[in-house]
């Protein structure tokens, strides 16, 4: 076998492996799409390429009978509030940790990161009673507050890592020109940290969208459900195992999210890598 055929065979093998992986990736995804266009509700009759192509599930989602649009709205409220709130809170915390000396600076963030590794199931019992005492049970506000508190350690660590890479000469120069603490934060740090702040905002926009555990515990009335809870109930409901409807409802949220991820994945990765390794 000469060098050229060997070379060609190798390339062929590479493409072959990639091809197999691609099939494995597309198989469940295509299946989901196909299912959402199938008639009826059961898995028995659904096929990869629908025999009876129908939009009935999509039509149903937007009809009067379903709360789908309401859930969509709730999810958007939670995600947007979480994205904005997390950027504000974590950038404040990260600024203090990156530029100032104070009690707890050295280990504070690490202590919280370690504490967060304890499983959250039991915490939910406590949070449930606590929210109940505050009257925030079954409200989106209560849910948002828990998300906001929980995301701080990791994201503050990420943003602090990024802030640390911004040269101190810049804020010292601004201080000599008479800028105060907040001025430096607002006019020097924030504009330079835009990439990582965008990553934090995106992470915190996405994270609540498909979290179903906490919302199932906090939210009890159907008009307060977020998308994940509502969709999960489509298939978890003992009397109405409605998989095709679930597939249709998931498509409408998964497709835009996937598009955003694919579009921004390079920034997500570089943000994680830069903040994460320098923190």
């Amino acid at each position, binding site marked *: 076998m000469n060098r050229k055929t060997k*070379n060609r065979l*190798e390339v062929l093998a*590479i493409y072959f*492996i*990639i091809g197999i*992986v691609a099939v*494995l*990736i597309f198989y*469940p*995804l295509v*299946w*989901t799409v196909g*299912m959402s266009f199938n008639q009826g509700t059961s*898995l*028995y009759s659904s096929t990869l390429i629908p025999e009876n192509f129908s939009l009935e599930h999509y039509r149903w989602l937007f009809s009067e009978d379903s709360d789908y649009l309401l859930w969509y709205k709730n999810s958007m409220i939670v995600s947007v509030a979480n994205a904005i709130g997390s950027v504000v*809170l974590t950038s*404040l*915390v990260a*600024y*203090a940790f990156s530029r*100032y000396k104070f009690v707890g600076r050295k280990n504070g963030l690490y202590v919280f*990161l*370690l*504490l967060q*590794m*304890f*499983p*959250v*199931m*039991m915490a*939910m*019992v*406590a*949070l449930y009673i*606590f929210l109940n*005492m505050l009257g925030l049970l079954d409200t989106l506000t209560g849910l948002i*507050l828990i998300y*906001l*508190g929980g995301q*701080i*350690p990791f994201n*503050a660590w990420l943003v602090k890592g990024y802030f640390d890479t911004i040269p101190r000469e810049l804020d010292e120069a601004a201080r000599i020109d008479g800028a105060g*603490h907040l001025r430096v934060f607002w006019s020097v740090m924030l504009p330079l940290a835009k990439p990582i702040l965008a990553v934090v905002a995106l992470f915190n926009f996405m994270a609540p969208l*498909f979290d179903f555990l906490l919302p199932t515990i906090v939210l009890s009335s159907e008009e307060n459900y977020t998308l*994940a809870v509502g*969709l*999960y109930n489509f298939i978890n409901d003992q009397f109405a195992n409605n998989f095709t409807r679930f*597939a249709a409802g998931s498509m409408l949220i*998964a497709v835009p*999210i*996937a598009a955003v*991820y*694919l579009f921004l*994945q390079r920034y997500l*990765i*570089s943000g*994680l*890598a830069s903040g*994460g*390794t320098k923190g």
Partner: protein
Amino acid sequence: MATPAKKKSDENIEQKNTSKRKRKQKQHNPNVAMVLSILFAGLGQLYNRRFLKGSIFIIIETAFLIVFLESINYGLWGLRTLGTIQGTDHSIRLLVLGVLSLIVTIIVITLYVFNVIDARKQAKKIQNGWKPMNLRDSLSAFYDYAFPYIMTFPGLLLMIFVVIFPLLFSVLLAFTNYDLYNSPPRNLVDWVGFDNFTNLITVPIWQDTFLSVFSWTIVWTVVATTLQIALGIFLAVLVNDERVKFKKLIRTILILPWAVPAFVTILVFSAMFNDDFGAINRDIIVPMFGGDGIAWLSDPMYSRIAIVLIQTWLGFPFIFALITGVLQSISKDWYEAADIDGASRFQKFRNITFPHVMFATAPLMIMQYASNFNNFNVIYLFNEGGPPVRGQNAGGTDILISWVYKLTFDTNNYSMAAVISIIMGLIVSGFAFYQFRRTRSFKEEGEI
């Protein structure tokens, strides 16, 4: 022009003044300031003539005494006793109140200690001849000093209630007998010390379940994570080959599983793996191999295989994307040098690519292991930790975290769930602590 005599008298007066001030300074006793502020927060500051600061402390303490003292006293009583009257006292609510009171008490004690130290420091400064600044300067000095605290305060407050408080609550639960039979409001919950921990080790059903779940958790974490990392690196190196065309398209396809929400894909997979009418049995296994298909959901062994496969599918794209980024930053010179030395492809990977990749991404890889250890979603959404296994109260694919979930929300065995949570938390955070310290010391070395 002043006469020499007048000059002398001026000096005299000045000397007198300074000695008077010196005596006053000497008289200013830090111990008095300390004792005063121990008696009541803020008094020491008044003695130091820091009137604004002193009155703020006094207001805080008075407010605390008036508003909180009673409820905190009640909360701490509840924490100690967990209620005494059956049917009236709600033990768990008392426990929550108790933990909250404990947190407030700790904050107040911290403030109090700070007040005492502050009073003493200031008094010492005055003794050594420090002249108080005017109001404006001292306010701005205070602002400088307090700025980092003001910035972290909102975050800290939220974290106290969302991270610290639930953690304290669940740690305390582990030392109670809170379960389905001892649950308020009908019954009272009691402190039982380390009984739950001993039960976990000595009572056969707990012991068996714990051991089997624990060992499966370790196997799951190691196998699933290693597989997803290996596949990610393998594909990244493969696609990075310069002979491969359409790189951008291929990379986009390979990242798809990461982009589609895992919540959706896991549920779809669980339908596809369904024993009776799932697509995998119906369309692939039965037509190709005949028989009735594989019992993916009801046989523990096959369920475990299916779950590991699903997690690999879900997890490799992130590693793939990460490694692809790292690969592009490795200088070509390394490989050219290796080519000249006649290195084989495997040698090049082992000695150039792999060290580079690991150097850049080790912390993130470690985090992959930690997150799979706690990967509740895959286990629970696939088949709720099932199938059931005889002689133990956890399912065949249950890892520790999904077992804790079942103990909490299905069988309401809160105290045992808390015990297992503590064990898990110690394992993961110990592991992470070790890792943080290693990367940190490593980094600090690098900086010098």
